[in-house]
């Protein structure tokens, strides 16, 4: 049996999803792939059911915002973990600012439910098919998505603070 490592994992993925892997990299030892967002559920199910890889633990889901990447402004980042092989995988899916939609993976992993709600809450990314996509940490009445880069940390018109030297 082949060693189950990043190389094997990438080879398996390329065998199945050749056209959908946009790029692959290995920063700090974790295989990181940029993936076609339309096939995320298919990818996660494949990894879940793969009888050697057994990537059955979803460690983390979070969003990211690159306002300067035209057409790929918003991203969702998944961290998967195969507890059997102690192998981790990071998957990134990017989408344009004006159509921030991606399929939910909560049908594969129950833990994605709240994490996707959190991502929606902070980045406004819509998870198609999510059972209960509402804001989770912020108030329901909020009309913006605070972790997007265009929102400053605090009101820039404040005059009671002078922190010029600290770059705020």
């Amino acid at each position: 049996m082949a060693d189950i490592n990043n190389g094997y994992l990438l080879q398996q993925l390329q065998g199945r999803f050749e056209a959908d892997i946009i790029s692959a990299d290995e920063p700090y030892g974790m295989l990181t792939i940029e993936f076609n967002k339309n096939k995320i559920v298919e990818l996660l199910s494949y990894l879940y059911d793969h009888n050697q890889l057994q990537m059955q633990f979803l460690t983390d889901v979070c969003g990211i915002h690159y306002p300067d990447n035209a057409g790929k402004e918003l991203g969702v980042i998944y961290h998967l973990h195969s507890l059997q092989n102690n192998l981790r995988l990071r998957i990134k899916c990017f989408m344009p600012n004006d159509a921030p939609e991606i399929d939910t993976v909560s049908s594969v992993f129950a833990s994605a439910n709240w994490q996707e709600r959190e991502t929606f809450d902070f980045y406004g990314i819509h998870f198609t098919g999510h059972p209960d996509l509402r804001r989770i940490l912020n108030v329901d009445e909020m009309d913006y998505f605070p972790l997007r880069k265009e929102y400053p940390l605090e009101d820039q018109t404040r005059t009671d603070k002078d922190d010029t030297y600290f770059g705020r």
Partner: protein
Amino acid sequence: MQNNELDLANNPEAKEYTTLNLGPTHPATHGIFQNILTMDGEIIVNAEQTVGYIHRAFEKIAEHRPYYQVTPLTDRLNYCSSPINNMGWHMTVEKLLGVQTPKRVDYLRVIIMELARIADHLVCNSVVGVDIGALTGFTYVFQLRERIYDIFESVCGARLTTNIGRIGGLERDFSNETVKLIKEFLVEFPKVFGEFSNLLERNRIFIDRTVGAGPISAERALNYGFTGPNLRATGVDYDVRVMNPYCSYQDFDFTIPIGKQGDTFDRFMVRQQEMLESLKIIKQAFENLPEGKHFAEVPEFFLPPKEEVYNNMEALIWHFKIVMGEADVPKGEVYHSVEGGNGELGFYLVSDGSRSAYRLHFRRPCFIYYQAYPEMIKGSTISDAIVAMSSMNVIAGELDA
């Protein structure tokens, strides 16, 4: 109401349910959580959770602060074991920078982290006792937690939100006072812990109340992203300290206690055993403490001693650069996780080379596993739901970030 899966054999319309607000500020929830329970008499039919009451926008703040200023934010995640969060963050930055810490730093960190784990588990387990009416154990073991806080205080000056250590090491080596306090603790802990165990572990009333309360299967727990003692109580031996050893954990000899049924009693017992394992680790680290410096050679991140800043030009420059956030950071992205008090605490850090993180995401274990709570308490009584919640060790600060 959403997610209302009424699997009653008879016609659901024929019944009238009671809606009960458990929380947001209820003395039995130990934090600000709201659960809107749908009750059929005494039985919980459905629970709808509301979280976010103490959301403080840590991820947004972290994008605007230099790396060393993120440490105080991590204090306020799981505030029952802040040193683990602090050191997890420091190790994440060290991983990004490629810093190799001296063995002594690792061992000193392990001692502090394991003390924090004991403090965390003591609070959780004694509170399980409180919620079923055994207040004595709680007041008794809190004296021990006080000892642990005394140790933290002698290392870093703070007790609860410790902000302990720095990127690259600890701010100072253990003093004679610290060593004395740790030695006293190592002698005192087994005695008090033994009495606490005697009080509850084989207590008939305690067993009757906790066995079978809020159970979850290993399969569901994994699917829900459980980590830490809650996952181990279901029988899965996943422990970050063993699977991905950080901070020289591979040097120590300890076992991973696991449970079987994933109910409140198993969670309680796993934590009890883990405290003893932590004690073993502390003893080993303490006895084999290597000589050396208490910090790594990263002058661009590790603040020089104050007396040198006043008398040494180079130290003054570094001090100025650190405080003003001028240090260069490599571009890249890194995920690092530590075994926190209640599970895998992860830090996903994206750096664009500037003074602060481009994106920092905290993988907060209890945010992820708390969503399984309705499933765990459906069909049980309120008293079981209360004790199941306290045995899950859900910490509001970590839940809401």
